[in-house]
């Protein structure tokens, strides 16, 4: 069970929309924007509030890669592995980030909840390949060295 404040916040988010099945995706997006992930308890809560089944809400939430049921770190690093970035050596960048942070293909978030590293299929910034994104900020023409420096930088900022 989540803290009461989560449900109050969710009520506030739901109140921005029509209480109907069509509001599910915008509500989920707002919750994820608030908490950087979609707490499963809140998905069930939203389903009840807008009158759809939990199974239906789960179906939608798992269909889109964008929704995550796991809490993410303070810095969410999206490494582009689209065609352009891939051929311009995004894999070494990804490996460096994972090594630096002790993460793997299975574990995406550091235990101190500071960093999450995930791959995305295209950031739409192919001209800047290989690109990565940290939260809303794009970093172009990445190299393993630049990645190491970036992590150090973010760690210093805390």
């Amino acid at each position, binding site marked *: 069970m989540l803290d009461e404040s989560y449900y109050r916040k969710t009520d506030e988010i739901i109140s921005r929309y029509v209480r109907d099945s069509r509001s599910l995706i915008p509500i989920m997006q707002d919750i994820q924007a608030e908490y950087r992930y979609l707490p*499963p308890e809140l998905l069930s809560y939203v389903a009840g509030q807008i009158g759809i089944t*939990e*199974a239906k809400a789960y179906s939608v939430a798992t269909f889109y890669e964008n929704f995550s049921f796991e809490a993410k770190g303070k810095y969410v690093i999206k490494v582009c592995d689209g065609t352009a970035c891939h051929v311009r050596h995004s894999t070494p960048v990804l490996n460096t980030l994972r090594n630096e942070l002790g993460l793997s293909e299975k574990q995406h978030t550091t235990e101190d909840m500071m960093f999450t590293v995930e791959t995305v299929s295209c950031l739409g910034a192919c001209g800047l390949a290989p690109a990565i994104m940290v939260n809303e900020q794009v970093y172009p023409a990445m190299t393993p060295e630049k990645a190491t420096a970036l992590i150090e930088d973010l760690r210093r900022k805390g």
Partner: protein
Amino acid sequence: MGTITINGKKVEFTNEKNVLTIIRKAGIEVPTLCYQPELSVFGACRLCTVEDDRGRCFAACSEEPRDGMVIFTHTERLRKHRKLIIELLLAAHCRDCTTCDKHGKCTLQRLAYQHGINTIRFDNHRADMPADFSSPAIVRDPNKCILCGNCIRVCNEIQGVGVLGFAHRGTDAMVSPAFERPMSATNCVACGQCRVVCPTGALTIHHNMSEVWHALLDPNTRVVAQIAPAVRVAVGEAFGLPKGENAMGKIVAALHRMGFDEVFDTTYTADLTIMEESKEFLDRVGKGEKLPLLTSCCPAWVKFVENEYPEFKQNISTCRSPQQMFSAILKEYYRDPAHADGKKTFVVSIMPCTAKKMEAERPDAHTFGEKDTDIVLTTTELIRMFDAHGVNFETMPSEACDMPFGIGSGGGVIFGATGGVTEAVLRRLTEGHDPATLKAIAASGVRGDQGIKEITIPYNGMDVKICVASGLANARKVLESVKSGEKEYHFIEVMACPGGCVMGGGQPTDGTRVQRAKTRTRGLYAADGEMVIKKSNENPLMDVFYNGYFKDKVHALLHNHQD
């Protein structure tokens, strides 16, 4: 309105919604996996694809009929197309046919055989997933799922419960409850309708046959059976009897030969249910409280109210279901050392229903500290056990049930059809038992396959308003209308499965739904017609029960003690 030419033959149509219905009406069989006439059209399996005179291919299930259409259903191109679909489905499908519970009844298996597929060209890259045995009623094996979505649609559209949904995407897509919870941790009411529409072995009955074989072998155990009304009209078909024929006598005889010590008829406790529920009803009407009275015979319905309408919980009759009454009585009877004969008693309840398996496991399914029903067998399992025991149904003589609980009334028999409980209550409350009175009750609107029926009956100077619903989505509509104040009823009968217990989740699924419902319902009313005793209160065993051995334990045996 118009005419379609199918394989060169002109076929007229009126208001059919899709081309497939017209094709089937013309007596032509086109295979389908995801099409169920009573559900919304999904159009996923593409097996019903047909070709028109211009070479255009389309799925017949989702094509609106147009006057003058010229279609072909079995061209070489379509045969190849269907074969490829089946091969692709098999590519990601579990291949353990011999140990599958759906063996011989599986649509996918039948289609593969028909199309002569004896090797599968593609490797199976789907990782093995664990099957879910957590529900006492239904086993879900994702490895056998072809994603036709029938279970999802029946659970949502017909039952209004919505436990299952598609999860994930692409090659990871699967049918699952929310958050991939085990079935036992969901709002599943165990009605088993998902298993009825599943074309493969992905959803099957959680069977308990081995426990029964084991008990039958133990010389120190008395194995007693009770048989629900709807079972008798669904067994014969599997052994070559006409569809819907009442095979009760043969079932009793076969059970005796298998080693059951005593065989009883659940109609006996259906009669007790009528006695108790009528009394409770008149009591509540007199006091004007806890109305409408909701029937309690169907455990899926009871679970549905507990899950989704807790405010109506106190309206549910405190009567146990006929299954639970009978098991409690049997256990109590043999608890007496004079009756026990040094043996322990094992109660097997033979039901058309998967939810009864769940009911038997409920905490309130115990009396005097002992579990009432040991094992629930569905009709489907019973047929399998008859087959395994080499029962020759054709030459099997008929035998009567055993005493002292072997008599039931016609009112008890019709419990198996929607409206039956209400009709039996009306028989009980109406004076006289002449054919004209009984006919008038039958014609009052209680019979018929409509999902929601309303009847008003004058009784003691008041108009008694009754509602009969089957299918939980219909039941939800009824409860919502009561909640909003739009409707007012004194009595509501609900059976979770559309059509009542004859269409239960544990029944055989051969043939079409409409045909099954029609023949079995007709069979039950015919069985009622043959009974000498029509009214529950005229069952001579009622007096024996209330004034004899069980005199002081009536309430403890027949009622649940609600908090």
